[in-house]
């Protein structure tokens, strides 16, 4: 073979090897760190594996938040208005976490079908509903419970911001802040 060609070939093989190595690494890392999203109904149906890290999303049931008086352990229920799953968490909850708000919990499912969360996500602003949660709720239910939904910024329907009043955990915050 022409020496230049041979060099070129070895360069190309070298690059391909490197890319293949990287691809292998990526696939390995990806397999380890993907968390699938499930709804409370899917979990209660028992079709969800208990070993892997997964995400579960739903609306926090009113009056279901229980705090341990001596530690930061907290427990609450998530619902998709068909089934309800109990979430256990230890630590500080995000600012926007409160009753009747759509949240996502990341963690592992226990054998007793309760969910041990390592992370609780309630994001962005109070009108925000995590897209997965929104999609998992039936449209009729969405209307019935008048859940806050996100509308395109330009639509006029978006303008009057519903006054939810102070409720749930926030009322505790609010009382504390005004006193």
């Amino acid at each position, binding site marked *: 073979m022409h020496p*230049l060609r041979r*060099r*070129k070939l070895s*360069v190309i093989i070298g*690059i391909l090897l*490197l*890319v293949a190595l*990287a691809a292998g*690494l*990526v696939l390995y*890392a*990806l397999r*380890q*760190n*993907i*968390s*699938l*999203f499930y709804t409370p109904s899917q979990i209660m149906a028992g079709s969800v594996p208990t070993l892997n*890290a997964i*995400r579960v999303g739903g609306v926090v049931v009113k009056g279901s938040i229980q*705090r341990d*008086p*001596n*530690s*930061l352990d907290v427990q609450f229920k998530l619902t998709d208005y068909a089934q309800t799953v109990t979430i256990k968490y*230890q*630590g*500080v*909850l995000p*600012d*926007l976490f409160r009753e009747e708000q759509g949240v996502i919990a*990341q963690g592992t499912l226990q054998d007793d079908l309760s969910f041990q969360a390592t992370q609780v996500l309630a994001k*962005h*602003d*109070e009108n925000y509903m995590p*897209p*997965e949660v*929104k*999609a998992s709720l039936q449209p009729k239910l969405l209307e019935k419970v008048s859940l806050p939904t*996100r*509308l*395109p*910024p*330009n639509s*006029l329907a*978006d*303008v*009057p*911001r519903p006054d*939810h009043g*102070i409720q749930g*955990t*926030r009322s*505790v*915050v*609010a009382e*504390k*802040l*005004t*006193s």
Partner: protein
Amino acid sequence: MMAELGVYALVWALLFSLLLVLVPVWGIYTKNATWMNAATTYVTGQLIFIGLAYGCLCGCFLQNDFTVVYVLANSSLHLPWFYKLCAVWGGHEGSMLLWVLILAFWTSAVAWASPHLDRDIRVRVLVVLGALSAGFIVFILMTSNPFVRQFVLTQTEGRDLNPLLQDIGFLFHPPMLYMGYVGFAVAFAFAIAVLWLGRLETKWAKSLRPWTMAAWCCLTLGITLGSWWAYRELGWGGWWFWDPVENASFMPWLVGTALIHALILVEKRNQFVAWTLLLAITGFSLSLVGTFLVRSGVLTSVHAFAVDPLRGLYILMFLGVVIGGSLLLFAWRAQTVVQHRLPDWVSRESAMLLNNIFLVVMMLTVLLGTVYPLVIDGLGLGKLSVGAPYFNQVFTALSTPLLLLMAFGLHVNWQRDSFLGVLRKLGWVFGLGLLCPLLCLVSVHYPLYPMTCLGAVLATWVMFSTLEKVRQRLLLSKTAKKINGAFLGMVIAHFGFSVTALGIIISNSYGIEDDLKMTPGEHTLFAGYDIQFLQEASIRGPNYHGTRSSFLITQGQHQATIYPEKRIYDVGKMPMTESAIDVNPVRDIYIAMGEPLDATAWSIRLYYKPFVRWIWAGGLMMFIGGCFGLSDRRFYRKEAA
């Protein structure tokens, strides 16, 4: 009145950008110099009218004109004036307008500041930029007009700017980021112009270098500011979350860094021309994907397309035309600029090529992690998310060889060198670089994790190897003449990179985090510091009220009091955590208030973060290095033909 003026100005700007495309193109094909030169005039007109439109939107905000929907959604009566000006780009529509304004700015900069550039290239560059601008203005006018009015709601105080965005970090972060994003449009336009012209010459690479460098500087600073903002404002002590929004800014940065290095190869050795052009196209394509997908909310959900089908369709079409078109052009014309020469295995060229490959592979892994959930969702295969550990694992694995390459590559000669020769040159660097970090870690009684040690040693190698390069340069030339702007810039930027790497490695390995329940008066021992919750008090700001608490941090002689806050913003009733940090160069103590637990107790989150400041210090150094690189006079001298 002002809003209507803004729309008219936008229409005029569209007209100018269309003229900027049509007239010079006509000039190019009829070889009419007057028509080609007209480009500069249209560029100026375009800048003036887009500036006017942007000024009008600012005016609407300052006047609290709540009949403009965009103002209503992003501002309120009691927002301080400087946040009102920030709120202009706080939402999708305004940020698109800022995008176009910055594009017009860069276009004018190219038109005015590159008199030595070959006219054939220059006009083509301006035409490509004009076409991009036209595409964006049409998008704004059709689907994202920030000047739309409403007359339903008249008695209102506005819905306020998202409290997360009411922060100094936000004053500078988005404009800087956009300067960077959009700056890559210049590199893109150069690539398209070169392919369009199909003529092989290397002068364009030299002209393009300062533009790429400028854009890269802005992007570096923007990302650094963003990371700093997230650290303080999001409340949970992280400085990088591998969020799609962050990834969208990081991918162009990786490609931009590769491009800066590749351009050196093209200019000095006239090699890898086609690869460089492809990088320029890729970098801007990623910026485009980033802006569109992030700002339009598509990345958070594919359903966003369903919410506003016109916007989604336009975005897809625009991306298809720009990215697909330029890649097609590349495939068709790249043959004309390819040169068949290969460097030796051990040579500076090979080192730079390898650096490019690593950076591009890094970019691809980020891209994969970001779009994978979207693709799976789009195919209806379920919903999933790719966690931060994926990115962390991949980046640890990829940046280890990259650091090694950096330490080596700097000392390899052009064209041909011997591996052993380089090793001999770097003997003391590797010896000292092995000892220093390990001794430091042992002396502060940190446990020695293998990966941490490896990372710290490699980062130190880069640091010392860069210093060694400076020493050699000084010895070699005796005078300081050889230390030009480009060299100094390279040194500072490389040094900055190793500083950032060291910050990341140390803070990730030795950071401590704790959630506690605390009542005023209570003490706790945390990471060797005595932390006392002193008291809490209510506060009232211009558009919020809340609680401020004070914490006393004591260790030996060191004493500091910091004041974390919990705010509730009046308009949205949105609670917000304002963390407080006791800062020194080698560690942060970070305290954030969680929620009230009972009558007096709060949940409190504590962080001890060693070396975390180094992450941003390094980013700042990379930015400064880039600025030095920009100041190199070689870029601005007229070429003796």
